[in-house]
């Protein structure tokens, strides 16, 4: 408080005292300096502009799980189908093993995020179709088991030639990985879309698509980083995923709903825009360049892969962080238009 302001307040107190002793009452309202209590609750300012919704209480492990799970699910599909459709035995085996490792890491990340990790099995007490969290837990458990089965089949194959157990495990494991890899690689979009957070439910249709394609791109990128940079099929898949991400990014920029503000402004906006760039136009350019380059093809593919992975990570962290910002918006849940945004300290 400045000296002038405090002397003003002291003078005002003297004035009140004089008035009280002279007339027995004080007619005017008391001191109400700017910033003093008694702001207003009103249909324009809501309840003191306090946000109604609670912020997500997930730890930073959850967006990381979204990344690992998305990649793992897509790797499961690639690993189960690639060698059946072409000469890709080595690539498919790598994909299967990475899918198995990914599903194990996913479980660890999810359990570590729980408030009571020792009770993680409570997730499997019930099956609840209307809870995306329940479906996700079952899908993760099932996928992990099938991925482990197909990896076990690979190990058995190396030990024994034509083992019937290996054949059984391979068939069951691959079928399961393909079927469950589909929901596993994109259900997290459903998980956050079907909540009370205004930003997420505004994009409930696009989030599963975007997260799914981001998972596919991460899978392709991870395989390229473990040496599969000569596969044209992977490059084509990478191009498809990056083209889709570009389209989703443009769609987001074109849409001007106020719910989407956290994806365009501030740190979360920067993160999501960066994610769009790194998983859309940049890998497209690098992948196309790798098709026409006479040398350094491998380097270009690796650069595209790194860009895609960082982009996918930014995408997951960006959307979760933007949801937290969205939860703090007091106007949207109360249906208060932005035009009615009046000063809290209104005299």
């Amino acid at each position, binding site marked *: 408080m400045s000296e002038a302001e405090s002397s003003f307040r002291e003078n005002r107190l003297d004035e009140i005292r004089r008035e009280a002793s002279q007339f027995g009452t004080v007619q005017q*309202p008391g001191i109400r300096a700017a910033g003093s*209590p008694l*702001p*207003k*609750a*009103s*249909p324009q300012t809501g*309840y*003191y502009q*306090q946000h*109604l*919704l*609670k912020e*997500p*209480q*997930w730890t930073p492990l959850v967006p990381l799980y979204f990344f690992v799970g998305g990649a793992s699910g897509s790797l499961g*599909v690639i690993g189960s*189908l*690639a060698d059946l*459709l*072409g*000469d*890709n035995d080595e690539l498919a085996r790598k994909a299967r093993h990475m899918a198995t490792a990914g599903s194990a890491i996913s479980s660890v990340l999810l359990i570590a995020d*729980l*408030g*009571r990790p020792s009770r993680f099995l409570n*997730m499997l*007490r*019930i099956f*609840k179709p*209307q*809870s*995306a*969290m*329940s479906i996700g837990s079952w899908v993760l458990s099932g996928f992990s088991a099938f991925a482990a089965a197909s990896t076990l089949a690979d190990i058995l194959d190396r030990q024994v030639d034509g083992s019937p157990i290996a054949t059984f495990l391979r068939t069951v494991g691959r079928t399961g990985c393909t079927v469950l890899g*589909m929901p596993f690689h*994109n*259900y997290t*979009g*459903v998980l956050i*879309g*079907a*909540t*009370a957070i205004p930003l997420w439910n505004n994009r409930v*249709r696009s*989030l*599963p*698509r975007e997260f*799914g*394609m981001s998972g*596919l791109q991460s899978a392709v990128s991870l395989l390229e980083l473990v040496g599969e940079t000569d*596969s*044209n*099929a*992977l490059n084509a*898949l990478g191009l*498809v995923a990056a083209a889709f991400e570009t389209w989703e990014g443009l769609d987001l920029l074109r849409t001007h709903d106020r719910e989407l503000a956290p994806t365009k402004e501030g740190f979360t906006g920067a993160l999501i825009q960066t994610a769009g760039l790194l998983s859309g136009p940049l890998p497209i350019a690098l992948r196309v360049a790798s098709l026409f380059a006479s040398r350094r093809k491998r380097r270009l593919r690796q650069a595209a892969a790194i860009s895609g992975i960082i982009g996918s990570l930014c995408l997951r962290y960006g959307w979760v962080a933007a*949801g937290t910002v969205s*939860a703090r918006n007091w106007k949207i849940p*109360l249906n208060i238009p932005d035009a009615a945004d009046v000063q809290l300290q209104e005299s």
Partner: protein
Amino acid sequence: MSGATDHTGIQPGEVTAFLTDSTLCIGCKACEVACKEWNGISADGYDFTGWSYDNTAALGHSTWRHVKFVEGHITPGIGGNSAQQLSWEFSSDVCKHCEVAGCLEACPTGSLVRTEFGSVLLQPDICNGCSYCVISCPFGVVQKNEDDGRAFKCTFCTDRQKGGLMPACAKACPTESIKFGRLDDLQVEAQVRLATLQARGMSDAQIYDPTETSVKGIHAMFIIRGEAETYNLPPKPEVPTIYLKDAWKSAAFEAVAMVGAVVASFFFLGRKG
């Protein structure tokens, strides 16, 4: 008021409710204290919000009743007879115990259940702290206690109700601003009270019970004055499960497209030579 040993006369199986009447609330916070004492909830600390005399701020894991101090614009005839006065309303907020509850739908462990009194109960012995209910409540009621690891919210004093006692907050309320009873009885009582208030000239009085939305009504209704927004009550709360159909449809299309892309690319481009 009922005496210490009076039975509510309500049997398990009957749907019970709160009717919280802001026109009777004096802001004493007896409900907050009674709730904390009966349920053994920890204190919130001596934090001052700085934006009003409401220093409880919001419902949360350790706050199951929250008296809102709704300090409004200077309106002659409201909240006092002098035009110099601000309007000065109080309203004790609580879990709404929705007819279709977002938290209950979202819970993957079955910790959240519908009780024999029609209320929504979070069983702490089952909750594993996934915190999905926190972001599924359209009223921002449920919260995870980061120290404890589990989520908590109003139990509707199910333990007391089983023993024929009314919830602690309702019992402690000195003005009967918090009424407890059978849901259908209180729905009628709310209408009668509304008519009385309007006959007294409080034309802005209204009942808050969002029956027209996907929440399909609440078991903790409110009588308020003016707009619901002023009380931080959402005019159109929606249960997040209404978004599921669109979300899964989109997920299914993308998943099929992904598998299609994998099959096509490895079939056409996956062969050597």
